[in-house]
Protein backbone atom coordinates (compact mmCIF):
# COMPACT_ATOMS: atom_id res chain seq x y z
CA UNK A 1 0.00 0.00 0.00
CA UNK A 2 1.43 3.40 -0.89
CA UNK A 3 1.22 6.63 1.05
CA UNK A 4 -1.49 8.11 -1.17
CA UNK A 5 -3.72 5.12 -0.44
CA UNK A 6 -3.17 5.56 3.30
CA UNK A 7 -4.01 9.24 3.03
CA UNK A 8 -7.26 8.36 1.26
CA UNK A 9 -8.10 5.91 4.02
CA UNK A 10 -8.00 8.79 6.49
CA UNK A 11 -11.13 10.30 4.95
CA UNK A 12 -13.04 7.01 4.70
CA UNK A 13 -15.87 6.19 7.07
CA UNK A 14 -15.08 3.89 9.97
CA UNK A 15 -18.71 3.19 10.67
CA UNK A 16 -19.19 -0.38 11.81
CA UNK A 17 -15.57 -0.78 13.01
CA UNK A 18 -15.49 -2.66 16.32
CA UNK A 19 -12.01 -1.52 17.19
CA UNK A 20 -11.33 2.10 17.99
CA UNK A 21 -8.45 3.78 19.74
CA UNK A 22 -6.73 7.14 20.29
CA UNK A 23 -3.16 8.20 19.60
CA UNK A 24 -1.16 11.41 20.01
CA UNK A 25 1.93 12.03 17.89
CA UNK A 26 4.66 14.32 19.20
CA UNK A 27 7.93 14.98 17.46
CA UNK A 28 10.83 17.25 16.76
CA UNK A 29 10.48 17.00 12.97
CA UNK A 30 7.39 17.17 10.76
CA UNK A 31 5.04 14.49 12.05
CA UNK A 32 1.89 15.21 10.04
CA UNK A 33 2.67 12.70 7.31
CA UNK A 34 3.46 9.94 9.78
CA UNK A 35 0.27 10.73 11.71
CA UNK A 36 -1.76 10.36 8.51
CA UNK A 37 0.05 7.21 7.46
CA UNK A 38 -0.59 5.61 10.87
CA UNK A 39 -4.26 6.54 10.79
CA UNK A 40 -4.63 5.23 7.24
CA UNK A 41 -2.77 2.04 8.04
CA UNK A 42 -4.90 1.45 11.14
CA UNK A 43 -7.96 1.84 8.91
CA UNK A 44 -6.72 -0.95 6.65
CA UNK A 45 -6.38 -3.14 9.76
CA UNK A 46 -9.94 -2.42 10.82
CA UNK A 47 -9.10 0.02 13.59
CA UNK A 48 -10.75 3.42 13.80
CA UNK A 49 -7.79 5.42 15.07
CA UNK A 50 -8.35 8.95 16.27
CA UNK A 51 -4.99 10.69 15.86
CA UNK A 52 -4.01 13.96 17.47
CA UNK A 53 -0.93 15.45 15.83
CA UNK A 54 0.75 18.06 18.03
CA UNK A 55 2.30 20.99 16.23
CA UNK A 56 5.89 20.91 15.08
CA UNK A 57 8.39 20.75 17.94
CA UNK A 58 5.84 21.14 20.74
CA UNK A 59 6.88 18.29 23.02
CA UNK A 60 7.91 20.33 26.05
CA UNK A 61 4.82 22.50 26.04
CA UNK A 62 2.54 19.48 25.61
CA UNK A 63 4.01 17.30 28.34
CA UNK A 64 4.66 20.06 30.90
CA UNK A 65 1.39 21.97 30.81
CA UNK A 66 -1.44 20.08 32.54
CA UNK A 67 -3.88 22.11 30.45
CA UNK A 68 -2.26 21.23 27.13
CA UNK A 69 -4.26 19.65 24.37
CA UNK A 70 -2.36 16.41 24.88
CA UNK A 71 -3.31 16.17 28.56
CA UNK A 72 -6.84 17.20 27.73
CA UNK A 73 -7.12 14.40 25.16
CA UNK A 74 -5.36 11.79 27.35
CA UNK A 75 -4.93 9.40 24.42
CA UNK A 76 -4.51 5.64 24.90
CA UNK A 77 -1.21 5.84 23.05
CA UNK A 78 1.37 8.64 23.02
CA UNK A 79 4.07 8.47 20.36
CA UNK A 80 7.38 10.30 20.62
CA UNK A 81 9.40 10.71 17.45
CA UNK A 82 12.61 12.63 18.00
CA UNK A 83 14.43 13.06 14.73
CA UNK A 84 18.15 12.46 14.50
CA UNK A 85 18.75 15.65 12.47
CA UNK A 86 17.61 17.82 15.39
CA UNK A 87 19.71 15.78 17.73
CA UNK A 88 22.72 16.44 15.52
CA UNK A 89 22.20 20.19 15.66
CA UNK A 90 22.22 19.93 19.42
CA UNK A 91 25.29 17.70 19.39
CA UNK A 92 27.21 20.18 17.26
CA UNK A 93 26.56 22.90 19.82
CA UNK A 94 27.36 20.80 22.86
CA UNK A 95 30.71 21.02 24.60
CA UNK A 96 30.65 17.81 26.66
CA UNK A 97 30.23 15.31 23.85
CA UNK A 98 31.21 12.13 25.62
CA UNK A 99 28.08 12.21 27.79
CA UNK A 100 25.69 13.41 25.09
CA UNK A 101 23.71 10.14 25.00
CA UNK A 102 23.22 10.23 28.77
CA UNK A 103 21.91 13.78 28.60
CA UNK A 104 19.42 12.90 25.87
CA UNK A 105 18.19 9.71 27.53
CA UNK A 106 17.50 11.66 30.72
CA UNK A 107 15.34 14.05 28.74
CA UNK A 108 13.47 11.21 27.02
CA UNK A 109 12.84 9.50 30.32
CA UNK A 110 11.62 12.79 31.76
CA UNK A 111 9.06 13.00 28.93
CA UNK A 112 7.84 9.52 29.82
CA UNK A 113 7.55 10.37 33.50
CA UNK A 114 5.80 13.67 32.85
CA UNK A 115 3.22 11.98 30.64
CA UNK A 116 2.74 9.13 33.10
CA UNK A 117 2.20 11.61 35.89
CA UNK A 118 -0.63 13.28 34.02
CA UNK A 119 -2.72 10.59 32.40
CA UNK A 120 -2.95 6.87 31.72
CA UNK A 121 -1.38 6.00 28.39
CA UNK A 122 0.95 3.63 26.61
CA UNK A 123 4.06 5.36 25.37
CA UNK A 124 5.38 4.51 21.93
CA UNK A 125 8.97 5.69 21.65
CA UNK A 126 10.63 5.63 18.24
CA UNK A 127 14.31 4.83 18.30
CA UNK A 128 16.79 6.99 16.40
CA UNK A 129 17.70 6.54 12.76
CA UNK A 130 21.46 6.14 12.77
CA UNK A 131 22.72 8.98 10.61
CA UNK A 132 26.49 8.83 10.64
CA UNK A 133 28.13 12.20 9.94
CA UNK A 134 31.34 10.33 9.02
CA UNK A 135 33.41 13.12 10.53
CA UNK A 136 35.59 10.48 12.14
CA UNK A 137 35.02 7.84 9.47
CA UNK A 138 35.18 4.29 10.82
CA UNK A 139 37.18 5.60 13.74
CA UNK A 140 33.97 7.14 15.07
CA UNK A 141 33.16 3.72 16.50
CA UNK A 142 36.04 3.97 18.94
CA UNK A 143 35.69 7.63 19.80
CA UNK A 144 33.27 8.69 22.50
CA UNK A 145 33.34 12.22 21.07
CA UNK A 146 31.84 11.18 17.73
CA UNK A 147 28.16 11.54 16.90
CA UNK A 148 27.71 7.96 15.74
CA UNK A 149 29.23 6.68 18.99
CA UNK A 150 26.75 8.68 21.04
CA UNK A 151 23.84 7.87 18.75
CA UNK A 152 24.32 4.11 18.86
CA UNK A 153 24.81 4.33 22.61
CA UNK A 154 21.58 6.29 22.84
CA UNK A 155 19.66 3.56 21.01
CA UNK A 156 21.06 0.99 23.44
CA UNK A 157 20.14 3.20 26.39
CA UNK A 158 16.57 3.41 25.08
CA UNK A 159 16.31 -0.38 25.20
CA UNK A 160 17.77 -0.50 28.69
CA UNK A 161 15.62 2.30 30.08
CA UNK A 162 12.35 0.97 28.77
CA UNK A 163 12.95 -2.30 30.64
CA UNK A 164 11.99 -0.44 33.79
CA UNK A 165 8.97 1.29 32.23
CA UNK A 166 6.28 -1.29 31.69
CA UNK A 167 4.08 0.99 29.58
CA UNK A 168 6.83 2.15 27.21
CA UNK A 169 7.14 0.30 23.91
CA UNK A 170 9.89 1.01 21.39
CA UNK A 171 9.08 1.51 17.73
CA UNK A 172 12.07 0.12 15.90
CA UNK A 173 12.74 2.52 13.05
CA UNK A 174 16.32 1.23 13.08
CA UNK A 175 14.91 -2.08 11.84
CA UNK A 176 13.62 -0.23 8.77
CA UNK A 177 17.04 1.31 8.28
CA UNK A 178 18.66 -2.12 8.51
CA UNK A 179 16.18 -3.60 6.05
CA UNK A 180 15.91 -0.84 3.46
CA UNK A 181 18.95 1.35 4.05
CA UNK A 182 19.08 5.01 4.93
CA UNK A 183 19.07 6.18 1.30
CA UNK A 184 15.68 4.56 0.74
CA UNK A 185 14.28 5.78 4.03
CA UNK A 186 15.41 9.34 3.98
CA UNK A 187 15.34 12.01 1.31
CA UNK A 188 17.51 15.05 2.11
CA UNK A 189 15.38 17.27 -0.15
CA UNK A 190 12.26 16.42 1.80
CA UNK A 191 14.01 16.98 5.09
CA UNK A 192 15.26 20.42 4.01
CA UNK A 193 12.07 21.69 2.43
CA UNK A 194 9.53 20.03 4.75
CA UNK A 195 11.47 18.75 7.81
CA UNK A 196 10.32 15.27 6.88
CA UNK A 197 12.72 12.70 8.45
CA UNK A 198 11.31 9.68 6.56
CA UNK A 199 10.13 10.15 2.98
CA UNK A 200 6.48 9.47 2.21
CA UNK A 201 7.36 6.45 0.07
CA UNK A 202 8.61 4.64 3.19
CA UNK A 203 5.99 5.93 5.62
CA UNK A 204 3.62 2.98 5.09
CA UNK A 205 6.38 0.71 6.45
CA UNK A 206 6.96 3.05 9.39
CA UNK A 207 3.21 3.22 10.04
CA UNK A 208 3.01 -0.57 10.00
CA UNK A 209 5.52 -0.79 12.86
CA UNK A 210 3.45 1.65 14.93
CA UNK A 211 0.14 -0.11 14.23
CA UNK A 212 1.67 -3.56 14.82
CA UNK A 213 2.68 -2.46 18.33
CA UNK A 214 -0.71 -0.86 19.00
CA UNK A 215 -2.44 -4.08 17.96
CA UNK A 216 -0.22 -6.22 20.18
CA UNK A 217 -0.75 -3.97 23.21
CA UNK A 218 -4.48 -4.26 22.58
CA UNK A 219 -4.29 -8.04 22.56
CA UNK A 220 -4.44 -8.76 18.84
CA UNK A 221 -1.65 -11.28 18.62
CA UNK A 222 -0.82 -14.53 16.87
CA UNK A 223 -0.51 -17.62 19.04
CA UNK A 224 0.02 -20.52 16.67
CA UNK A 225 1.64 -21.42 13.35
CA UNK A 226 0.27 -24.37 11.41
CA UNK A 227 2.85 -25.86 9.07
CA UNK A 228 2.76 -27.91 5.93
CA UNK A 229 5.68 -30.35 5.52
CA UNK A 230 6.70 -31.20 1.94
CA UNK A 231 8.49 -28.26 0.30
CA UNK A 232 7.62 -26.07 3.27
CA UNK A 233 9.74 -27.55 6.09
CA UNK A 234 12.02 -29.52 3.78
CA UNK A 235 12.70 -29.79 0.07
CA UNK A 236 11.02 -32.68 -1.71
CA UNK A 237 8.13 -35.02 -0.93
CA UNK A 238 8.71 -37.47 1.90
CA UNK A 239 6.19 -40.00 0.56
CA UNK A 240 7.90 -40.15 -2.85
CA UNK A 241 11.52 -39.29 -2.16
CA UNK A 242 12.02 -41.06 1.18
CA UNK A 243 13.91 -39.87 4.23
CA UNK A 244 17.36 -40.14 2.56
CA UNK A 245 16.44 -37.83 -0.30
CA UNK A 246 14.52 -34.93 1.22
CA UNK A 247 16.51 -31.72 1.28
CA UNK A 248 17.49 -30.43 4.70
CA UNK A 249 20.82 -29.69 6.38
CA UNK A 250 23.95 -27.67 5.65
CA UNK A 251 24.37 -28.66 2.03
CA UNK A 252 22.79 -27.11 -1.04
CA UNK A 253 19.23 -25.83 -1.02
CA UNK A 254 18.50 -27.83 2.14
CA UNK A 255 20.20 -25.02 4.03
CA UNK A 256 17.27 -22.68 3.33
CA UNK A 257 14.89 -25.13 5.02
CA UNK A 258 17.25 -25.68 7.94
CA UNK A 259 17.37 -21.96 8.68
CA UNK A 260 13.61 -21.70 8.28
CA UNK A 261 13.17 -24.51 10.84
CA UNK A 262 15.64 -22.85 13.21
CA UNK A 263 13.59 -19.68 13.08
CA UNK A 264 10.33 -21.57 13.70
CA UNK A 265 11.95 -23.32 16.65
CA UNK A 266 12.87 -19.92 18.08
CA UNK A 267 9.24 -18.84 17.67
CA UNK A 268 8.27 -21.94 19.62
CA UNK A 269 10.65 -21.02 22.43
CA UNK A 270 9.07 -17.58 22.50
CA UNK A 271 5.67 -19.13 23.14
CA UNK A 272 4.16 -19.45 19.67
CA UNK A 273 2.62 -22.90 19.28
CA UNK A 274 3.73 -24.94 16.29
CA UNK A 275 1.41 -27.48 14.71
CA UNK A 276 1.71 -29.68 11.65
CA UNK A 277 -1.04 -30.10 9.08
CA UNK A 278 0.12 -32.31 6.23
CA UNK A 279 -1.37 -34.50 3.54
CA UNK A 280 0.68 -37.61 4.20
CA UNK A 281 0.64 -41.01 5.87
CA UNK A 282 1.18 -40.20 9.53
CA UNK A 283 4.11 -42.61 9.96
CA UNK A 284 5.90 -41.21 6.89
CA UNK A 285 5.33 -37.64 8.06
CA UNK A 286 6.74 -38.33 11.53
CA UNK A 287 9.79 -40.26 10.36
CA UNK A 288 12.03 -37.28 9.44
CA UNK A 289 11.40 -35.64 12.83
CA UNK A 290 12.21 -38.87 14.63
CA UNK A 291 15.12 -40.15 12.55
CA UNK A 292 16.66 -37.55 10.24
CA UNK A 293 19.95 -36.44 11.85
CA UNK A 294 19.81 -32.93 10.41
CA UNK A 295 16.20 -32.11 11.22
CA UNK A 296 16.08 -29.05 13.49
CA UNK A 297 12.46 -29.37 14.59
CA UNK A 298 11.59 -32.51 16.54
CA UNK A 299 8.30 -34.10 17.55
CA UNK A 300 8.45 -32.41 20.98
CA UNK A 301 8.42 -28.99 19.31
CA UNK A 302 4.86 -29.48 18.06
CA UNK A 303 1.75 -28.91 20.12
CA UNK A 304 -0.17 -30.97 17.56
CA UNK A 305 0.73 -33.19 14.65
CA UNK A 306 -1.97 -33.89 12.10
CA UNK A 307 -1.06 -35.91 9.01
CA UNK A 308 -3.79 -37.61 6.99
CA UNK A 309 -5.64 -37.32 3.68
CA UNK A 310 -8.48 -35.10 4.86
CA UNK A 311 -8.76 -31.62 3.37
CA UNK A 312 -6.62 -29.05 5.14
CA UNK A 313 -9.47 -26.76 6.15
CA UNK A 314 -11.09 -29.59 8.14
CA UNK A 315 -7.77 -30.44 9.76
CA UNK A 316 -7.15 -26.81 10.69
CA UNK A 317 -10.62 -26.62 12.22
CA UNK A 318 -9.76 -29.73 14.23
CA UNK A 319 -6.46 -28.19 15.40
CA UNK A 320 -8.23 -24.98 16.37
CA UNK A 321 -10.89 -26.83 18.37
CA UNK A 322 -8.31 -28.91 20.21
CA UNK A 323 -5.95 -26.05 21.07
CA UNK A 324 -8.99 -23.91 21.81
CA UNK A 325 -7.55 -20.59 20.64
CA UNK A 326 -9.11 -18.07 18.27
CA UNK A 327 -8.88 -18.79 14.54
CA UNK A 328 -7.72 -15.18 14.04
CA UNK A 329 -4.68 -15.93 16.20
CA UNK A 330 -3.47 -18.64 13.83
CA UNK A 331 -1.14 -18.53 10.82
CA UNK A 332 -1.04 -21.20 8.12
CA UNK A 333 2.16 -21.72 6.12
CA UNK A 334 2.05 -23.84 2.98
CA UNK A 335 4.08 -23.68 -0.24
CA UNK A 336 1.11 -24.86 -2.31
CA UNK A 337 -1.06 -22.00 -3.67
CA UNK A 338 -3.99 -24.39 -4.12
CA UNK A 339 -4.02 -25.40 -0.43
CA UNK A 340 -3.59 -21.77 0.61
CA UNK A 341 -6.50 -20.56 -1.42
CA UNK A 342 -8.69 -23.44 -0.20
CA UNK A 343 -7.92 -22.60 3.43
CA UNK A 344 -8.38 -18.87 2.83
CA UNK A 345 -11.80 -19.37 1.30
CA UNK A 346 -13.00 -21.90 3.89
CA UNK A 347 -11.58 -20.09 6.94
CA UNK A 348 -11.44 -16.33 6.32
CA UNK A 349 -10.25 -15.51 9.88
CA UNK A 350 -6.94 -17.36 9.62
CA UNK A 351 -3.83 -15.57 8.29
CA UNK A 352 -2.42 -17.29 5.20
CA UNK A 353 0.74 -15.59 3.91
CA UNK A 354 1.48 -16.11 0.22
CA UNK A 355 4.87 -17.72 0.55
CA UNK A 356 7.23 -16.86 -2.32
CA UNK A 357 7.87 -19.63 -4.84
CA UNK A 358 11.56 -19.75 -4.03
CA UNK A 359 12.17 -21.37 -0.60
CA UNK A 360 15.26 -19.19 -0.10
CA UNK A 361 12.85 -16.25 0.21
CA UNK A 362 10.47 -17.81 2.79
CA UNK A 363 12.24 -16.47 5.82
CA UNK A 364 12.82 -12.88 4.69
CA UNK A 365 9.24 -12.69 3.48
CA UNK A 366 7.75 -13.98 6.72
CA UNK A 367 9.99 -11.79 8.84
CA UNK A 368 8.89 -8.76 6.84
CA UNK A 369 5.23 -9.42 7.69
CA UNK A 370 6.03 -9.07 11.40
CA UNK A 371 3.17 -11.37 12.33
CA UNK A 372 4.44 -12.20 15.80
CA UNK A 373 4.58 -8.80 17.45
CA UNK A 374 3.99 -9.04 21.20
CA UNK A 375 3.56 -6.64 24.10
CA UNK A 376 4.83 -8.96 26.79
CA UNK A 377 7.11 -11.88 27.38
CA UNK A 378 7.28 -14.06 30.46
CA UNK A 379 8.53 -17.36 31.83
CA UNK A 380 5.21 -18.99 30.95
CA UNK A 381 5.78 -18.46 27.22
CA UNK A 382 8.63 -20.94 27.17
CA UNK A 383 6.41 -23.59 28.75
CA UNK A 384 3.47 -23.27 26.43
CA UNK A 385 4.16 -26.12 24.00
CA UNK A 386 4.73 -28.56 26.86
CA UNK A 387 1.44 -27.51 28.45
CA UNK A 388 -0.51 -28.23 25.30
CA UNK A 389 1.18 -31.60 24.98
CA UNK A 390 0.17 -32.44 28.57
CA UNK A 391 -3.35 -31.58 27.52
CA UNK A 392 -3.19 -34.32 24.92
CA UNK A 393 -2.17 -36.74 27.70
CA UNK A 394 -5.23 -35.73 29.71
CA UNK A 395 -7.48 -36.26 26.71
CA UNK A 396 -6.10 -39.80 26.39
CA UNK A 397 -6.73 -40.52 30.07
CA UNK A 398 -10.26 -39.20 29.86
CA UNK A 399 -11.13 -41.98 27.43
CA UNK A 400 -10.52 -44.54 30.19
CA UNK A 401 -13.29 -43.21 32.44
CA UNK A 402 -16.99 -43.48 31.83
CA UNK A 403 -17.81 -41.12 34.70
CA UNK A 404 -16.53 -37.55 34.28
CA UNK A 405 -16.34 -37.02 38.07
CA UNK A 406 -14.14 -40.10 38.41
CA UNK A 407 -11.90 -38.73 35.69
CA UNK A 408 -11.59 -35.33 37.38
CA UNK A 409 -10.78 -37.07 40.65
CA UNK A 410 -8.05 -39.08 38.96
CA UNK A 411 -6.34 -35.87 37.80
CA UNK A 412 -5.41 -35.03 41.42
CA UNK A 413 -5.80 -31.29 40.89
CA UNK A 414 -4.41 -28.65 43.25
CA UNK A 415 -5.13 -24.93 43.00
CA UNK A 416 -3.73 -21.87 44.72
CA UNK A 417 -5.24 -18.40 45.23
CA UNK A 418 -3.05 -15.33 45.77
CA UNK A 419 -3.23 -11.55 45.58
CA UNK A 420 -1.27 -10.02 42.66
CA UNK A 421 2.46 -9.96 43.39
CA UNK A 422 5.34 -8.45 41.46
CA UNK A 423 6.64 -11.84 40.27
CA UNK A 424 3.48 -12.32 38.29
CA UNK A 425 2.64 -8.83 36.98
CA UNK A 426 3.82 -9.61 33.46
CA UNK A 427 2.00 -12.95 33.25
CA UNK A 428 -1.20 -11.39 34.63
CA UNK A 429 -1.04 -8.50 32.15
CA UNK A 430 -0.38 -10.96 29.37
CA UNK A 431 -3.42 -13.06 30.27
CA UNK A 432 -5.62 -9.96 30.20
CA UNK A 433 -4.25 -9.22 26.73
CA UNK A 434 -4.59 -12.77 25.40
CA UNK A 435 -7.88 -14.04 26.82
CA UNK A 436 -10.95 -13.49 24.69
CA UNK A 437 -13.39 -16.33 25.29
CA UNK A 438 -13.58 -16.84 29.05
CA UNK A 439 -13.46 -13.14 29.81
CA UNK A 440 -16.40 -11.47 31.52
CA UNK A 441 -15.59 -7.82 30.86
CA UNK A 442 -12.55 -8.01 28.53
CA UNK A 443 -10.58 -5.24 30.21
CA UNK A 444 -7.00 -5.16 28.88
CA UNK A 445 -4.26 -4.16 31.31
CA UNK A 446 -0.59 -3.35 30.81
CA UNK A 447 1.97 -4.54 33.35
CA UNK A 448 2.10 -1.06 34.79
CA UNK A 449 -1.65 -0.98 35.34
CA UNK A 450 -1.55 -4.40 37.00
CA UNK A 451 1.17 -3.13 39.35
CA UNK A 452 -0.99 -0.11 40.19
CA UNK A 453 -4.04 -2.29 40.88
CA UNK A 454 -1.99 -4.48 43.20
CA UNK A 455 -1.09 -1.51 45.35
CA UNK A 456 -4.49 0.14 45.28
CA UNK A 457 -6.57 -0.11 48.49
CA UNK A 458 -9.80 0.25 46.56
CA UNK A 459 -9.41 -3.15 44.94
CA UNK A 460 -8.86 -6.75 45.91
CA UNK A 461 -6.86 -8.72 43.38
CA UNK A 462 -6.63 -12.48 42.94
CA UNK A 463 -4.82 -14.82 40.63
CA UNK A 464 -5.20 -18.59 40.48
CA UNK A 465 -2.84 -21.40 39.59
CA UNK A 466 -3.70 -25.01 38.84
CA UNK A 467 -1.67 -28.19 38.61
CA UNK A 468 -2.49 -31.86 38.24
CA UNK A 469 -0.61 -35.12 37.95
CA UNK A 470 0.19 -34.47 34.29
CA UNK A 471 1.82 -31.14 34.94
CA UNK A 472 1.53 -27.55 35.99
CA UNK A 473 -0.84 -25.18 34.19
CA UNK A 474 0.71 -22.22 35.99
CA UNK A 475 -1.24 -19.02 36.41
CA UNK A 476 -4.52 -19.53 34.58
CA UNK A 477 -7.05 -17.09 35.97
CA UNK A 478 -7.23 -13.50 37.14
CA UNK A 479 -9.91 -11.59 39.04
CA UNK A 480 -10.10 -7.93 40.03
CA UNK A 481 -12.64 -6.95 42.67
CA UNK A 482 -13.70 -3.34 43.26
CA UNK A 483 -14.76 -2.34 46.76
CA UNK A 484 -18.05 -0.48 46.52
CA UNK A 485 -20.42 1.11 48.99
CA UNK A 486 -23.00 -0.87 50.99
CA UNK A 487 -20.56 -3.71 51.62
CA UNK A 488 -20.66 -4.62 47.95
CA UNK A 489 -17.83 -6.21 46.01
CA UNK A 490 -17.94 -5.76 42.22
CA UNK A 491 -16.10 -8.23 39.98
CA UNK A 492 -14.60 -5.72 37.55
CA UNK A 493 -12.61 -8.39 35.75
CA UNK A 494 -12.57 -12.15 35.69
CA UNK A 495 -10.94 -14.16 33.00
CA UNK A 496 -9.61 -17.66 32.71
CA UNK A 497 -7.48 -19.57 30.26
CA UNK A 498 -9.66 -21.90 28.21
CA UNK A 499 -7.18 -24.70 28.73
CA UNK A 500 -8.68 -25.39 32.17
CA UNK A 501 -12.35 -25.33 31.22
CA UNK A 502 -14.60 -28.07 32.55
CA UNK A 503 -12.34 -29.09 35.38
CA UNK A 504 -14.43 -27.42 38.07
CA UNK A 505 -12.02 -24.50 38.12
CA UNK A 506 -14.70 -21.87 37.47
CA UNK A 507 -16.69 -23.22 40.44
CA UNK A 508 -13.55 -23.29 42.56
CA UNK A 509 -12.75 -19.66 41.67
CA UNK A 510 -16.29 -18.44 42.25
CA UNK A 511 -16.21 -20.06 45.70
CA UNK A 512 -12.88 -18.36 46.38
CA UNK A 513 -14.26 -14.98 45.33
CA UNK A 514 -17.18 -15.41 47.71
CA UNK A 515 -14.78 -16.43 50.49
CA UNK A 516 -12.68 -13.35 49.75
CA UNK A 517 -15.80 -11.19 50.02
CA UNK A 518 -16.83 -12.82 53.28
CA UNK A 519 -13.37 -12.63 54.86
CA UNK A 520 -13.15 -8.92 54.02
CA UNK A 521 -16.57 -8.08 55.46
CA UNK A 522 -18.64 -7.74 52.27
CA UNK A 523 -22.31 -8.83 52.14
CA UNK A 524 -22.99 -8.69 48.42
CA UNK A 525 -21.06 -9.72 45.31
CA UNK A 526 -21.97 -8.25 41.92
CA UNK A 527 -20.72 -9.53 38.59
CA UNK A 528 -21.19 -8.21 35.08
CA UNK A 529 -21.05 -9.75 31.63
CA UNK A 530 -20.07 -7.40 28.79
CA UNK A 531 -20.64 -9.25 25.50
CA UNK A 532 -17.99 -9.17 22.76
CA UNK A 533 -17.75 -11.10 19.51
CA UNK A 534 -15.86 -13.85 21.31
CA UNK A 535 -17.00 -14.30 24.90
CA UNK A 536 -20.39 -15.91 24.41
CA UNK A 537 -19.26 -18.97 26.38
CA UNK A 538 -19.50 -17.02 29.64
CA UNK A 539 -22.83 -15.26 28.92
CA UNK A 540 -24.61 -17.45 31.48
CA UNK A 541 -21.60 -18.10 33.73
CA UNK A 542 -22.81 -16.10 36.70
CA UNK A 543 -26.26 -17.72 36.55
CA UNK A 544 -24.63 -21.15 36.43
CA UNK A 545 -22.57 -20.19 39.47
CA UNK A 546 -25.72 -19.40 41.43
CA UNK A 547 -26.04 -15.63 41.05
CA UNK A 548 -29.30 -13.81 40.30
CA UNK A 549 -29.73 -11.66 37.17
CA UNK A 550 -30.10 -8.00 38.16
CA UNK A 551 -30.65 -6.53 34.68
CA UNK A 552 -28.25 -4.81 32.28
CA UNK A 553 -25.91 -7.78 32.16
CA UNK A 554 -25.39 -7.65 35.92
CA UNK A 555 -25.73 -10.50 38.40
CA UNK A 556 -25.78 -10.43 42.16
CA UNK A 557 -25.64 -12.75 45.16
CA UNK A 558 -25.74 -12.35 48.93
CA UNK A 559 -22.67 -13.91 50.52
CA UNK A 560 -24.81 -15.57 53.23
CA UNK A 561 -27.10 -17.21 50.65
CA UNK A 562 -24.35 -18.55 48.40
CA UNK A 563 -24.00 -22.35 48.23
CA UNK A 564 -20.40 -23.50 47.83
CA UNK A 565 -19.74 -25.98 44.98
CA UNK A 566 -18.32 -29.43 45.12
CA UNK A 567 -15.13 -29.71 43.07
CA UNK A 568 -12.27 -32.17 42.76
CA UNK A 569 -9.70 -29.47 43.29
CA UNK A 570 -7.64 -29.33 46.45
CA UNK A 571 -6.89 -25.89 47.91
CA UNK A 572 -3.23 -25.38 48.47
Amino acid at each position, binding site marked *: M*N*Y*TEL*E*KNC*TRSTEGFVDSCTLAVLGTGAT*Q*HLAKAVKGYAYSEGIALDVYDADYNQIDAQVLDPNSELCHKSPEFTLFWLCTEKLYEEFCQSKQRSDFADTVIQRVERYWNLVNGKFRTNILQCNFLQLDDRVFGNYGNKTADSFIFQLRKLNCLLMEKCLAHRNVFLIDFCYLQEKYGIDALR*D*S*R*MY*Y*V*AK*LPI*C*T*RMLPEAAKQVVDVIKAVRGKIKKCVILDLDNTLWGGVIGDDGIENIQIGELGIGHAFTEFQMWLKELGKRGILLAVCSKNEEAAAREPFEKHPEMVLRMEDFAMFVANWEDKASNINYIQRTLNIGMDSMVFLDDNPFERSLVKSMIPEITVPDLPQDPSQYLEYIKGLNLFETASYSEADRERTRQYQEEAGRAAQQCQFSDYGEYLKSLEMTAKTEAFDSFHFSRIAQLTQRSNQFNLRTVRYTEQEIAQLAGDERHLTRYFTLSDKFGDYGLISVAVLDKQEDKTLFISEWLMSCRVLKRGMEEFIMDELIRTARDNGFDTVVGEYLPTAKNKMVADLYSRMGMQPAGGGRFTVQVKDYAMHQTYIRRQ
Partner: protein
Amino acid sequence: MGRTEIIEKVNTVFRDVFDDDRLLIGEQTTAADVDGWDSLKHISLIEAVEEAFDMRFTMLEINGMKNVGEMITIIEQRVV
Protein backbone atom coordinates in the same frame (compact mmCIF):
# COMPACT_ATOMS: atom_id res chain seq x y z
CA MET B 1 7.07 11.52 -24.37
CA GLY B 2 5.27 14.61 -25.66
CA ARG B 3 3.96 17.47 -23.56
CA THR B 4 0.31 16.46 -23.94
CA GLU B 5 1.12 12.90 -22.98
CA ILE B 6 3.02 14.12 -19.91
CA ILE B 7 0.23 16.40 -18.79
CA GLU B 8 -2.28 13.56 -19.13
CA LYS B 9 -0.16 11.30 -16.99
CA VAL B 10 0.44 14.10 -14.44
CA ASN B 11 -3.31 14.60 -14.31
CA THR B 12 -3.76 10.93 -13.38
CA VAL B 13 -1.29 11.33 -10.53
CA PHE B 14 -3.10 14.48 -9.35
CA ARG B 15 -6.43 12.68 -9.36
CA ASP B 16 -4.96 9.88 -7.26
CA VAL B 17 -3.16 12.14 -4.78
CA PHE B 18 -6.10 14.51 -4.33
CA ASP B 19 -8.56 11.63 -4.41
CA ASP B 20 -10.72 13.42 -6.99
CA ASP B 21 -11.64 11.57 -10.20
CA ARG B 22 -12.86 14.69 -11.95
CA LEU B 23 -9.88 16.92 -11.22
CA LEU B 24 -8.65 18.57 -14.42
CA ILE B 25 -5.35 20.40 -14.44
CA GLY B 26 -3.72 22.57 -17.08
CA GLU B 27 -0.41 24.33 -17.64
CA GLN B 28 -1.61 27.37 -15.72
CA THR B 29 -2.93 25.47 -12.69
CA THR B 30 -1.35 26.59 -9.40
CA ALA B 31 -1.62 25.35 -5.80
CA ALA B 32 -4.27 27.98 -5.16
CA ASP B 33 -6.54 26.37 -7.78
CA VAL B 34 -6.59 22.88 -6.30
CA ASP B 35 -8.48 22.12 -3.13
CA GLY B 36 -6.10 20.69 -0.51
CA TRP B 37 -2.81 21.51 -2.31
CA ASP B 38 -0.94 22.74 0.75
CA SER B 39 2.71 22.37 1.70
CA LEU B 40 2.09 18.91 3.18
CA LYS B 41 0.30 17.66 0.11
CA HIS B 42 2.98 19.18 -2.09
CA ILE B 43 5.51 16.68 -0.67
CA SER B 44 3.40 13.59 -1.33
CA LEU B 45 2.48 14.99 -4.76
CA ILE B 46 6.14 15.44 -5.70
CA GLU B 47 7.03 11.93 -4.55
CA ALA B 48 4.08 10.47 -6.46
CA VAL B 49 5.01 12.33 -9.68
CA GLU B 50 8.62 11.22 -9.33
CA GLU B 51 7.53 7.64 -8.94
CA ALA B 52 5.19 7.81 -11.93
CA PHE B 53 7.88 9.20 -14.23
CA ASP B 54 10.88 7.57 -12.58
CA MET B 55 12.72 10.91 -12.30
CA ARG B 56 13.74 13.36 -9.59
CA PHE B 57 13.23 17.07 -9.04
CA THR B 58 15.96 19.10 -7.36
CA MET B 59 15.31 20.78 -4.04
CA LEU B 60 15.25 24.14 -5.81
CA GLU B 61 12.61 22.90 -8.25
CA ILE B 62 10.44 21.41 -5.50
CA ASN B 63 10.40 24.74 -3.76
CA GLY B 64 10.34 26.95 -6.85
CA MET B 65 7.82 25.60 -9.35
CA LYS B 66 5.06 28.16 -9.80
CA ASN B 67 2.51 26.16 -11.76
CA VAL B 68 1.87 22.80 -13.40
CA GLY B 69 3.44 24.09 -16.65
CA GLU B 70 6.81 24.46 -14.96
CA MET B 71 6.51 20.95 -13.56
CA ILE B 72 5.77 19.61 -17.05
CA THR B 73 8.77 21.42 -18.49
CA ILE B 74 11.11 19.83 -15.95
CA ILE B 75 9.64 16.38 -16.57
CA GLU B 76 9.96 16.93 -20.34
CA GLN B 77 13.66 17.69 -19.95
CA ARG B 78 14.34 14.62 -17.83
CA VAL B 79 12.18 11.93 -19.39
CA VAL B 80 13.31 10.61 -22.73
